[in-house]
């Protein structure tokens, strides 16, 4: 049996082997099943709470519940699973056996990231399916109840926009996975990586405040700090674009495209730093 010459090329197939194993581990975790069940229950409960919709339309209320579930549960899953699956390999010393094989550390880091990212993407995919189903069921019953008020052919919900929105969320969570991957490459406990992940998620949600503050303050030091923070940390608020989808408004494809590029650039940047950090780590 031959394994080739002495030179070892960087291999996408080895990366994908690690990714598929990570995915298999993630979906066999009780946490994944629990989170999925919980998120679907939360979405289903929007039917029960639709009387408390604070004046907004029923469909928008259901959509907001679904979008919130995707963001909150998706982010929680991304943080926990990334930290557990990457640091778990180091803590349980399984990484030693793996890295004693002809595997580059960058392949290991990227494989772990891809495995978790695909897991979270599947989770968002399932929630999207449930959300679309819930909205379609409610829309159908509204059409039956109010046949004269709704014009023939008029769609109350922009379903295509929901799919684009979900795709954008996959990339938003990709950034978060890349960040937690980075923390995991130098952390000594998964708790630390998870706490850092939560903090960064909060800061990322409020990052636009720092950017705005950078434009207002006159102190050069503060201005520099705000600007650096504005570039170094992702602005997760940019991905909150689902506002009008349940009222039939479309999501511009150009905006989705920009969000995808934004997500890819930040993820690649954090993964490059994570690889550099992990290359220095002694196991």
């Amino acid at each position: 049996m031959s394994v080739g010459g002495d030179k070892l090329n960087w291999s996408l197939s080895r990366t994908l082997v690690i990714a598929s194993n990570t995915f298999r581990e993630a979906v066999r975790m009780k946490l994944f099943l629990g989170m999925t069940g919980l998120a679907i229950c939360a979405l289903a409960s929007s039917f029960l709470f639709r009387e408390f919709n604070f004046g907004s339309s029923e469909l928008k209320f259901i959509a907001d519940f679904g979008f919130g579930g995707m963001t909150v549960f998706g982010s929680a899953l991304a943080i926990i699973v990334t930290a557990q699956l990457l640091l778990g390999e180091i803590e349980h010393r399984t990484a030693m056996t793996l890295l004693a094989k002809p595997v580059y550390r960058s392949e290991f880091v990227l494989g772990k990231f891809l495995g978790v990212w695909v897991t979270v993407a599947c989770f968002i995919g399932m929630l999207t399916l449930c959300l679309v189903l819930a909205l379609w069921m409610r829309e159908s019953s509204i059409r039956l109840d109010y046949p004269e008020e709704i014009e023939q052919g008029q769609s109350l919900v922009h379903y295509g926009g929901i799919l684009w929105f979900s795709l954008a969320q996959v990339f938003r969570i990709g950034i978060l996975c890349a960040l937690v991957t980075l923390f995991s490459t130098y952390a000594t406990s998964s708790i630390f990586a998870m706490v850092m992940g939560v903090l960064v998620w909060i800061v990322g949600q409020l990052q636009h405040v720092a950017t705005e503050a950078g434009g207002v303050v006159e102190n050069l030091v503060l201005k520099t700090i705000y600007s650096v923070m504005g570039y170094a940390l992702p602005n997760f608020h940019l991905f909150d674009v689902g506002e009008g989808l349940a009222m039939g408004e479309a999501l511009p494809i150009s905006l989705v495209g920009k969000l995808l590029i934004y997500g890819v650039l930040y993820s690649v940047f954090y993964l490059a730093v994570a690889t550099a950090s992990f290359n220095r780590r002694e196991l």
Partner: protein
Amino acid sequence: MSAAISIQGVSKDFRIPGSKRRLRAVDNLNLEIERGSVFGLLGPNGSGKSTTIKMALGLVRPSKGKCEILGNSSLESSARKRIGYLPEAPCFQRFLTGRELLFYFGKLSGVKKTDLEDRVNSLLVRVGLEDAGDRRVGGYSKGMLQRIGLAQAMVGDPELFILDEPTAGVDPIGAADIAAIIREVREEGKTVLLCSHLLSKVETICDRAAIMVKGKLALEGSVESLTAATDFSSARIEGLSAEGRKQLETFAAEWHFDLSTPRRSLEELFLELAKGDGDLE
């Protein structure tokens, strides 16, 4: 041809957390392990054996000196193309079955898809796990973990095996089986670096051995030369009659030497009982 492992003037210092002091785990170690030999690395706990192995595998960077594996720097990933490593107290992905684990490591080792299935099946038989191959690794006993660990080390058909305590937690039958596999591997012309506390096993398997104490190389040489005692000789006589023994005792008294009845080791006794039907010969 280069040595299988060449360690040249290697030292490793670890920073002590919360202090500026450093702990020297390995101190100016020089070691050459020839290809095709079984080399035993011995030493008490904390003597620097595992750190030496990790440096050889490129998992830890030496503070000073250099390590070469089969002619390549151990820090290059390509050096690990021809290594099979079994870690001490092996811990594997618990959610995988034994078979899935071997497939996983086989793919990472670059084994061709067409060869992988046959290779995995033959390895499961070779390490005695053919009936447990479809069980999850999480349910394996310590001995089974060592066996599957040995199989994953062999899956890429490496030239060099680095085995850290391969018989730890394994019963004497398992230990004897693992020793037999190591002998087979040597007969195939491969090199084995073996770390073990079971000195009797090392003595019977290894061609050469080194003893490390407090990070330094205390002794190195062929097992024969290290264990040879030059100031006495011994003879073993089987089936000696009572009269023969009497004559020998007289002779011993005249020539001032000791005559004793050899004892069987508990390991020999255990193996005889366990491999037979419980009856002793």
